[in-house]
């Protein structure tokens, strides 16, 4: 057995023990430490494979014997898992004590990490499906352990229902692949089978990844989970679903299919725009972040779709670049989304409140967490020189070149995707300006916030580490690019730079860019000097600035809400209390309903339950009816026999 395999095994062993130890409440710290060690070993094993070590373990097989292995792709996801999980666990060390059912949650965290890793390294159908189901169930259990109230139960049910229904797609896809032995040679898949597998995989993995329109569970489930679990869900779970999608569409389908690429592009566009639009109109921080996960999954899907289309057109280089772009964004999103969720958790701990309109001014009171959170926000908004910009730049480049690929359909699709992604990025900027402004800046909007204190060391350390990762990945994305491009099927080999340098682009020399920006800013600050007059209140046409004048989340996004009224269909009610012709007080209620729920999911559910109610009349309680069923069955069978339909 190779060293890598040994390390991986040791890691899983440590993870397991960490999970078991966690059940003893007193040993929480030790348990988390064990889990950290285990997951970092797993990640290390993965990283070594990504960095060029030979794949370990077996390849995929349709047999029932359990088989495991790590190849480049699995390695990449293992490594990303470790990068997210380690800070999440460190965070949990400060976060869990004092929350409901801490030991159980800690144990479940280990189980969750185990199942995530399991899906990625599984090489046979049964282990894959088994870990897949566990990956769905464990977070549900974690949520239920920490919240039991009606709303949480409802949420968990919706989560399990939607993901499990979609999960049927995964089952069908995997079982069909096994049936045709397509793991070994994809050529064995016939036309019809290809269609079946592709559609099933799209629905199955798409649901779990939160691609619109299968996303309905995501903004519900992620916010209620304990913060470090939400970080793992948003950071890794939906990515593991994408891992499955990548395997199917790039490895197990015979040749890159045009329609699949276009569909991925379309879903990606829908998810990125839809996700960020709905994120913009949220006012609960975690729910907002959840919608942003949908957006970023969309961006990744755009990269994957582009890669398929390039491959279909025979552009090996750009196909692998697009593939790398998708993977790079996967990693980046995992990092900054984990950072943001953990930050949100820290705020929640400090002020027991995540309504954007009740926070504010936390940068002063929680400088470390606040600063790290701001970095994460800037990263997810795609600002240079942070990691979000690097991967979004790469994705945009691929889409832009897709537009020039030479056939009308693909060209227009590429053009639309480019414009859409541009708008998405702008919307993300809009959204996170709002978030940072409302959470970190301005005056505190409630007493708890005014009295907030900085989070304990472990929580601070976690977010600061992740913020550092955001900067590092932003400044040196080029070190990863060739590796990731190499992971693509017939992946092209690219030279290694610090920045991203590709033919057909003006290059993104991230390190130089960062240095330049910093130097110039420094110089300008020096030139500005420290001269400043006495502080003055902000200008409000001469009147005093009162809290009543401060801007709300809804107020800031109002222009866009008005511009997109036709799409978002916001609902508002203004009630004025007038006495003697004088307006005494005005109450304003506004919300943006989630159209996918109101227009798609609820009707379906309503119809289904109505149909079920009708069907339940079969059990009418009358014995004679039942005997009649039997009679009818026998007669029907006899008729079938007589007509030769049967036998």
């Amino acid at each position, binding site marked *: 057995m190779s060293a890598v395999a040994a390390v991986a095994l040791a890691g899983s062993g440590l993870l397991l023990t960490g999970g078991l130890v966690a059940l003893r409440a007193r040993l929480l710290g030790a348990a988390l430490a064990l889990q950290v060690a285990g997951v970092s070993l797993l990640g290390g094993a993965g990283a070594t494979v990504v960095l060029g070590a030979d794949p370990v373990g077996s390849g995929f097989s349709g047999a029932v014997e359990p088989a495991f292995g790590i190849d480049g792709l699995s390695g990449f996801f293992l490594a990303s898992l470790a990068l997210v999980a380690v800070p999440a666990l460190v965070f949990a060390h400060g976060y869990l004590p004092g929350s409901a059912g801490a030991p159980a949650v800690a144990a479940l965290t280990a189980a969750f990490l185990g199942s995530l890793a399991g899906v990625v390294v599984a090489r046979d159908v049964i282990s894959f499906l088994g870990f897949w189901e566990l990956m769905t169930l464990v977070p549900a259990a974690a949520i239920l352990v920490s919240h039991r109230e009606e709303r949480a139960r409802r949420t968990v049910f919706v989560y399990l229902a939607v993901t499990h229904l979609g999960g049927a797609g995964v089952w069908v896809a995997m079982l069909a692949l096994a049936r045709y032995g397509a793991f070994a040679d994809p050529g064995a898949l016939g036309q019809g089978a290809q269609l079946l597998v592709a559609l099933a995989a799209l629905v199955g993995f798409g649901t779990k990844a939160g691609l619109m329109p299968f996303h309905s569970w995501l903004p519900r489930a992620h916010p209620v989970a304990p913060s470090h679990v939400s970080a793992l869900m948003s950071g890794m779970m939906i990515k593991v679903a994408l891992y499955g999608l990548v395997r199917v569409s790039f490895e197990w389908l015979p040749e890159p299919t045009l329609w699949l690429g276009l569909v991925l592009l379309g879903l990606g566009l829908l998810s990125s725009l839809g996700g960020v639009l709905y994120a913009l109109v949220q006012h609960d921080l975690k729910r907002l972040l959840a919608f942003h996960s949908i957006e970023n999954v969309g961006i990744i899907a755009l990269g994957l779709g582009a890669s398929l289309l390039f491959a279909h057109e025979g552009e090996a280089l750009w196909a692998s670049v697009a593939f790398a772009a998708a993977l790079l964004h996967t990693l980046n999103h995992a990092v900054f989304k984990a950072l943001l969720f953990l930050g949100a958790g820290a705020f929640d701990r400090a002020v027991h409140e995540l309504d954007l309109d009740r926070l504010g001014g936390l940068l002063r009171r929680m400088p470390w967490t606040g600063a790290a959170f701001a970095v994460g926000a800037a990263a997810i908004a795609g600002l240079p020189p942070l990691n979000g910009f690097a991967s979004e730049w790469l994705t945009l480049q691929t889409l832009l070149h897709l537009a020039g690929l030479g056939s009308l359909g693909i060209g227009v699709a590429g053009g639309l995707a480019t414009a859409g992604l541009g708008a998405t990025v702008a919307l993300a900027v809009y959204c996170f300006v709002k978030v940072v402004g409302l959470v970190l800046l301005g005056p505190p909007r409630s007493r708890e916030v005014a009295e907030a204190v900085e989070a304990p060391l472990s929580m601070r350390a976690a977010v600061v580490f992740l913020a550092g990762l955001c900067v590092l990945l932003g400044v040196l994305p080029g070190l990863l690019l060739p590796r990731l491009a190499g992971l693509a099927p017939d992946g092209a080999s690219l030279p290694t730079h610090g920045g991203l340098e590709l033919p057909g682009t003006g290059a993104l020399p991230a390190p130089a860019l960062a240095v330049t920006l910093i130097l110039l800013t420094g110089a300008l600050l020096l030139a500005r000097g420290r001269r400043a007059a006495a502080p003055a209140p902000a200008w409000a046409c001469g009147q005093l600035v009162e809290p009543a004048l401060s801007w709300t989340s809804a107020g800031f996004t109002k222009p866009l809400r008005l511009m997109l009224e036709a799409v978002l269909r916001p609902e508002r009610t203004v009630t004025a209390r007038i006495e003697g012709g004088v307006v005494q007080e005005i109450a304003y209620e506004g919300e943006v309903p989630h159209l996918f729920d109101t227009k798609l999911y609820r009707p379906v559910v309503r119809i289904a339950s109505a149909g079920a109610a009708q*069907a339940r009349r079969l059990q009418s309680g009358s014995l004679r009816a039942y005997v009649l069923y039997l009679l009818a069955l026998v007669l029907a069978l006899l008729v079938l026999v007589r007509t030769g339909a049967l036998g």
Partner: protein
Amino acid sequence: MTDLVVTLAWLSVGLPVAAALLSQLTSRDRATDRIGLIGAVGTAGAAGALATLALVRSGEPVVSGVVLVDAASGVFLAVIAAVGLLSALVSPAYLDGRERGFFAPARARHWYWLGFHLFWAALLSVPIAANLGVAWLLVEATTAASALLVAYSGRRNALEAGWKYLVLTTIGLTVALLGIVVAYASAPGADGLSALGWGSLRRSASEMPHEAAVVAFVLLLAGLATKIGWAPVHNWLPDAHSEAPPPVSALLSAALLPAVALVAWRSKVALEPAVGGGTARAVFLGFGLASLAVAVPFLWRPLAWKRLLAYSSLEHMGVIALGIGFGHPLAIAGVVLHVAGHALAKALGFYATIPLLQFQPQAALRSARGVARTSPATASAMGISLGSLSGLPPSPLFFSEVFVLLGGFLSGHAAVAAVAAALLSLGFLGLVHALIESMLGEPRDARVPERRSSRLAARLTLVVGAALLALSVTAIALPDSAPVEALVRWAG
């Protein structure tokens, strides 16, 4: 060797009958219980030994007279013996907490043990019957024996359930008997009982006139379906399961249904040459899909605990039908695993109602709520049971369902298997909702659970949970184990 097998066979049928009769002799309740329990242990021992023997020597089946012991009988015997033993062991706990009933209180226990052991004896003899006719007689006997047990509590609903059970299944079995007569009549040179022996039936089937054979087959299947509880003739099942005493419900759901399903399976194997593989398969797949589909809307409704389990039985019988229909080796392995796993999980679920009803009486009529908040032991029993029944890993039912579906794909029934997968996950919605609410919902009224009943629940959970885990562990090795290979060879 053969003699040993035959002796064991007669023992495992004779012991419960003896116990049934002996338990009538004494007049004291405790003594009756003791006799019943001793008899149960003895029976389980004999049947278990027979089962192990059958599984070990699954290569060469033993046929002598009306006794047939092969791999299939081994599997089903083991299941029936295990469930029967557990049911017997929990019975006193149920009998103690019982109010007025069908029988005069003085003799109630005697009647119970009489019915229980006769029922069990009939059940144990079904899988080792070497003959279609005899098998039919025994199945019919189970009806007579269990109908009174279903109505045991004497409540109005119980009477209703018992009556429906009696009438429906008797009519069904009459149709099945007609099928047998047809088969016998159209079997060339049929003279005497031996003509209905599984082996000779299969041999003579190849010369049967096709149409008559098909008629015989569909009549037989339609009739047995009423007893197995395949949709659309399952309607007695939820009523009987929800009204019978928990130990009996467990026997009905975990032992009776699979046992009759085995008879159907054997008939398929026997008549296939005459009927044609396609037709036989189609009938089973039809029943399977119908059962899965019919179960879904009922699972979506907040049901009383036992009724919920009953409808999940409908669903799982559907899975078994599919597995038999697919006929692929993997699917057959799935069926074996499914029968065993379903039996254990379902039995645990039914036993859990004994403590449950003690501290949440209205759970007999409405869905259970928030059990975890009042009695963790009971909650763990119910949770493990329902979790396994909804096919969540690492329960054996997860593996068996993968096996069956994969077998379906491999045998080229991709469409059927895909639909089945969809229906299963639709049914899952109801089960998981019930799981969440019954564990964590707000309890309607929480009496304090007795320590005794929660001890019972805890012990059961431990035993059955361990057994389930063991099954899961063996799951992977199952498909190419000797018994399954023997089954595959037998099923052709």
